[in-house]
């Protein structure tokens, strides 16, 4: 019995032991879920179709696309004026404005004006706060 439970850890490969155990456990749990929920998994196609049709696609996909664009542009824009945080500032103003307009239900001047003010003041204040009092470099 003592020999059966004896374990020798090879330090060179010790980084693989725990991930392997966890991967096996994860696989077994996944298998258990597949067996238990097989009916639900078989009907997953209709579930996703229903989710897709119920989704507000312009707002959801638009938010994702704007966020992707925002993240992608921040560094290249910031590289034009290195170590100033202007990449963040110049990308955040249109991002906040565009996302806000995307999320709006009524897009009249009276609704857009407060958003425009927030889009200008918010990022500018955050940029100032992090650049000067906090001394943290933004993109």
């Amino acid at each position, binding site marked *: 019995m*003592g020999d059966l439970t*004896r*374990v*020798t*850890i090879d*330090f*060179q490969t*010790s*980084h*693989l*032991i*725990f*991930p392997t155990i*966890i*991967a096996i*456990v*994860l696989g077994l*749990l*996944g298998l258990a*879920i597949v067996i*238990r929920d097989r009916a639900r998994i078989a009907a997953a196609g209709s579930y996703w179709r229903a*989710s897709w049709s119920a*989704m*507000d696609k312009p*707002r*959801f996909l*638009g*938010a*994702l696309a704007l*966020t*992707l664009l*925002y*993240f992608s542009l*921040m*560094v290249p824009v910031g590289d034009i004026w290195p170590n100033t945080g202007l990449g*963040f500032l110049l990308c955040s103003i249109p*991002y*906040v404005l565009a*996302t*806000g*307009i*995307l*999320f*709006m*239900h009524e897009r009249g001047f009276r*609704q857009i004006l*407060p*958003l425009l003010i*927030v*889009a200008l003041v*918010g990022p500018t204040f*955050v940029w100032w706060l*992090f650049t000067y*009092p*906090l*001394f*943290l*470099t*933004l*993109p």
Partner: protein
Amino acid sequence: MFEILTPLFVSLIVGGTLVGIIFGAIPGMTATMAVAVCLPLTYSLGLENGLALLLGLYVGGISGGLVPAILLGIPGTPSSITTTFDGYPMAQRGEGEKALRIGIVASLVGGLISLLVLDLFAPTLADFAIKFSYVEKFLIIFFALTVMAALSSDMLLGIFSGVLGIFISLIGTYDISRGGNGELRLVPPGTEYWLESGFSLLPVLIGLFGLAAILEQAEIGVPKGHSTKDINVGKHSRFSFGIFKGQSINLVRSSLIGTFIGILPGVGGSAASIISYTNAKTFSKRPGNFGKGEPAGIMASEAGNNGLTGGALVPLLSLGIPGDSTTALLIGAFTLQGIQVGPLFIGNNPGTWDAMIIAMLIANIAMFAMMYFAIRYFALVVTIPKHILFPVILMMCVIGAYTINYGIMFDVWTLLIFGVLGWLFTKLRLEVAPFIIGFILGPSAEIYFIKSLESFGDATIFFTKSWIAVVLWILIAGSVAGAALMAKKKKEITDEAV
């Protein structure tokens, strides 16, 4: 002890509590989100002042949820679900202000009782936990994960979520500083540069709790906010403290239930308020009134969810195991300041410990004072348009992720990856809280597991090391068996209903 009470320290608590209440009062936003968004502000504040801000946000965020729950019948945070049951009917009959004040007083009682438990219990537990070897430390984490998964709405999916969190936390280098061999694992070819240290905790948290919540709202079309016409505070609903006569047992019991639920890792405020409410109804002389505007229901729900605040800090500060999602974020605040929470924390950092207790006390008093006397103004918070709020929050999420490691753009992409993953979790019915706890505890679990085997060379050591190990195994078995019994009972009730 009181030298910490500087004007800045108190201002940060009061300001944090105010912002937390606003976050909690806006449906779809939570205390966790408030802490996630404001975390980068703690960089230059130092540990005590940073914690003052975050604890204020925590207490305020949990408390603020009662405002829309009562006035609109929409829980501002998950922990206010049961407040809607009796709060909203009261508001409908013109007793909104009275209901709000009942909830605020109950929140204060819950917060203070849980703080007392924290102050008395955490140091004792920490002193005891210092004796733990690698084996007991591994078993404590195993127990925490078991409890958390067992109390998930679906045990199997809860366990899967927790284990998935552990698996993702293992991506990167097997940390030399913690006794590892410095080798990479689970890193796809070509991504070594970015994933050498794995995914950073805070961008992961901000993604799961900030971006994911906004994506969920975007998916349903970012529902229009409420106008002032929707809010019926009830100008003529007289409140008096006499309403609490005969309710002290309900208040204390609910607070203690909330505190106990808080101590259990990853269970969350909704369970605290539901169990407190159910107990209040069971022991009430007028159970039929519950759900129709019974003040005792609001008291139970709010004392229960505020009881969570102190309780959730007990395992964090004594064992290094977060009690809920928000306290998981507090680990980030400690990490930023280079401090590791665990059994040695209270003994090694008595000043910080005192500061936290004082901060929690002031936060609870500030929450009560602000909400009790200015509830009419807080009621207006629910009218803030989401199309203004959400873009600003998204921008703050980016700031938080980017500045966490002093300017790494990969952390911003991590935020996006986990934001989308968090949204997918809700679609797949996976649970975020177990995932997060697994992600946080995974690296420690690995080190303790491997070191136990390296030290003793025998797998049976996990059962034979000490009486503590045996007790922990009994607790693990008990939590699994209890969860299985509860699941069976729930299934029987569902079958009967069908």
